C-alpha cells in the first residue's frame, strides 16, 4: 500500500547539513502494523512528516519516492496533498495537550475534518446520518467518540481539551484521525506521554481499529517493548538511517545489527535471573557534519576500518529481513 524508496530529508543548519532522513526505504502492506523504533533525534518523526510532506522549514525532501496506492506523493500538487492528508492518511501526534486547540470544544475539533474533507456531502453519509448537516455532523462525531471509548460522549462533546485527561485527549486525537476512515494511520509516539495502564488502553484501541477497518499503521516509538508486542514488523533507525528491518520475532530474537543488539541488551529483562544490562558506550552522535560511513561505527564493538570509509548498503539476510552492516551475511540489496 505504501512504498518508500531512498527517501532523504535534509536540514541545512549553521553547523552543517543535517541528514535527518538518509536514504530510507521501507514498505507497508495493507492492514499491517509496522513499528519504527529508535532513540530521540534518529529521524523517526521526520520520516513520518516526510510521508505527509509536512517537513518544517528549513528542512527539505531532497530525494526519493513515496508511493501510496500507486501514486508518488512527492510529485503531487500542494492542493492534492491537502485533500489526501486527514482523508487517506491521518496522523496522531505525540503530545495531545499541545495538538488540540485549547479554545475550541472537543466535539467541534473532531467535526472539523469532516467539514474540511467534504465527507458530509457524500451520498452514503447523507443516507446514514440524515440531510441536516449540523445534526449529521454531531451524530457522526458522537459515534466516533464512542468508538474510541470516550465515556458520556454527549457531555464530553461540549467540553474543552483542558477538561480531558491525557488519555482522553489522545482518544480525541485518534477520533479526529479516524473521522474520514483513513487507509493509513501514522502514529508518532502516541503513548509516550501516558501512564502504563493508559498506554495499554490506547494500544488496544489502535489494535482494534486495525482489525476492524483494516487500517495500516506505522507506529513510531522509542519503546522496543511496545513495538514487540504490537507490531508485525519492526524497523530500527539510527542517526537518520534505517539500520535493520524485519519481522518482529526475528528482529527481537535474532537481531543482526550491532545497534539493535545493543538496544536489546540495554533493556532490563523482567523474567529469569538477573542478567547484567550492557549499555552502549558513548552518546548518540550530532547529526550535523556526520562523516560518511556507518553512523554507528564510533560506538560499535565490531568496528573495522572499512566501516568508516564508505556508505554501507542494506543487505538481505532472509526473505524480509534486511540489515545495514558490513559484518552481516547476505546479499547487497
Amino acid at each position, binding site marked *: 500500500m505504501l512504498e518508500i524508496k531512498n527517501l532523504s530529508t535534509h536540514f541545512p543548519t549553521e553547523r552543517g547539513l543535517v541528514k535527518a532522513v538518509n536514504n530510507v526505504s521501507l514498505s507497508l502492506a495493507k492492514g499491517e502494523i509496522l513499528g519504527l523504533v529508535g532513540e530521540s533525534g534518529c529521524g523517526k518523526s521526520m520520516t513520518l512528516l516526510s510521508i505527509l510532506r509536512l517537513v518544517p522549514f528549513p528542512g527539505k525532501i531532497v530525494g526519493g519516492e513515496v508511493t501510496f496506492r500507486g501514486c508518488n506523493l512527492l510529485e503531487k500538487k500542494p492542493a492534492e496533498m491537502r485533500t489526501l492528508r486527514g482523508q487517506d492518511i491521518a496522523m496522531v501526534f505525540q503530545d495531545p495537550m499541545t495538538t488540540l486547540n485549547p479554545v475550541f470544544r472537543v466535539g467541534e475539533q473532531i467535526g472539523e475534518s469532516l467539514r474540511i474533507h467534504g465527507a458530509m456531502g457524500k451520498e452514503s453519509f447523507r443516507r446514514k446520518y440524515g440531510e441536516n448537516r449540523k445534526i449529521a455532523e454531531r451524530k457522526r462525531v458522537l459515534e466516533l467518540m464512542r468508538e474510541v471509548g470516550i465515556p458520556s460522549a454527549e457531555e464530553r462533546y461540549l467540553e474543552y481539551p483542558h477538561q480531558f485527561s491525557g488519555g482522553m485527549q489522545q482518544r480525541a486525537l485518534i477520533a479526529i484521525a479516524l473521522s474520514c476512515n483513513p487507509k493509513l494511520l501514522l502514529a508518532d509516539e502516541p503513548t509516550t506521554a501516558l501512564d502504563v495502564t493508559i498506554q495499554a488502553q490506547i494500544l488496544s484501541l489502535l489494535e482494534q481499529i486495525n482489525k476492524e477497518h483494516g487500517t495500516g499503521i506505522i507506529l513510531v516509538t522509542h519503546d522496543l517493548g511496545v513495538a514487540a508486542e504490537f507490531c508485525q514488523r519492526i524497523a530500527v533507525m539510527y542517526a537518520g538511517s534505517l539500520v535493520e528491518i524485519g519481522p518482529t520475532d526475528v528482529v527481537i530474537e535474532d537481531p543482526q545489527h550491532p545497534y539493535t543488539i545493543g538496544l536489546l541488551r*540495554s533493556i532490563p529483562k523482567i523474567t529469569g535471573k538477573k542478567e547484567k544490562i550492557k549499555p552502549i558506550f558513548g552518546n548518540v552522535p550530532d547529526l550535523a557534519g556526520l562523516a560518511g560511513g556507518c553512523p554507528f561505527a564510533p560506538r560499535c564493538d565490531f568496528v573495522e576500518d572499512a566501516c568508516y570509509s564508505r556508505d554501507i548498503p542494506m543487505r538481505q539476510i532472509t526473505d524480509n529481513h534486511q540489515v545495514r552492516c558490513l559484518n552481516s551475511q547476505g546479499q547487497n540489496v
Partner: protein
Amino acid sequence: MAAAEPLVRTEGLTKYFTSRRSLVAKLVARQKDRLIKAVDDVNLAIYPGETLGLVGESGCGKTTLGRTLIKLYEPTSGEIYYRNQLVHEMRGKELTAFRKEAQIIFQNPYASLNPRKTVRDIISVPLRTRGLREPRIIEEEILNLLHRVGLSPRHIDSYPHQFSGGQRQRIGVARALALQPNFIVADEPVSALDVSVQAQIINLLEELQEEYQLTYLFITHDLSVVHYISDRIAVMYLGHIVETAPTTTLFSRPLHPYTQALLSAIPSVDKSFRRKRIILEGTVPTPLDPPPGCRFHTRCFAKLGDICTRVTPSLVEVEKNHFVACHHFE
C-alpha cells in the same frame, strides 16, 4: 536484610498541599481552599544497603513521598525516623548531619542544574558544606568525583548546556555523592534519558551502591527498570502504598488488583513475560477529591462490594515480607 533495623522508617506519614482559590472565587462562588492529598498515611521501612523501588503512575505521590522523606517538605502529620531518631525533632548539628546523609538525585537533569554555574561551582558547594576549605583539596575531590561518575577532568569548567542528558545526570550523581551520603532518593533518575544511555546510569548507580554501601529509594514508573535495580518494591496508588514485597515475589505473585493490572500492562520484548493484559477502566481519580474507602475501587475489577467503597483497607502481611492493602486479604 529484613532482620536489621530500618535506616528510614515512617509512621502514618501524610503530606497534604493546599490548592488556594482566589479571593474572588471565595467571595463570589463561595469556593473553599482544597486539599491535595498527595501522600496519605504511609508506613514504610527502608533497610540499610537495600534498594527500595517505589512505583506508581504520574500524580500518585511518589515524588512527594521521596521529598518528604529527606525533609525537603514538612510532613502534614506522621513521623519519619532516621536511624531510629525522629527527623522532625532534629535541630542544629543533628539536622545538618541528616541533611548530609540523605541526598536526592532529581528527575530532570535539564532543570536541576544551574545553567550559569560550571561543574566546579556546582560540585564545590556540597564539598564546602562537608567542611573542605583548601581550594587545592576541593579541586582534587571534584576530579575524583568526576572520575568516579565517568566524566573526564577536562569537564570541570564546562557549563551544564555543554553536556548531553546522560552526562548531566552524572553531574547530578556526583553532586549527591559529594556529601558522602548514606541514603539517596533517586527520583526518576533515568526517565528523561534514551534507552542506551539509561543503562549506563543504572549500572553506575549499582556500582556506587556496592562501593559506598548506599541505601536507595528508587522512584520510577518504569517497571522493567525497577525490577532490575530493586531488592524490594512498594507500589503506590493515589497517595497510598497498596503493596510491598521483595522484587521476585511481587513479579511472580502480585496480589493487589492494581499491581496485577500494572504488571500486565508492561509491554515487553520478552515473550515469556507476556501475560493476559488486564485493561483498567478509566483514569486515576484526582487527589483533590480521592474516592472514599479503597482508593482503587473506582477502577477495580475484583471489587468485593460495599466494603471497598466504605472502608480503607490497611496493609497486612500476607506472607513473609509481603504486605497488601486490599479487602480480599483482610
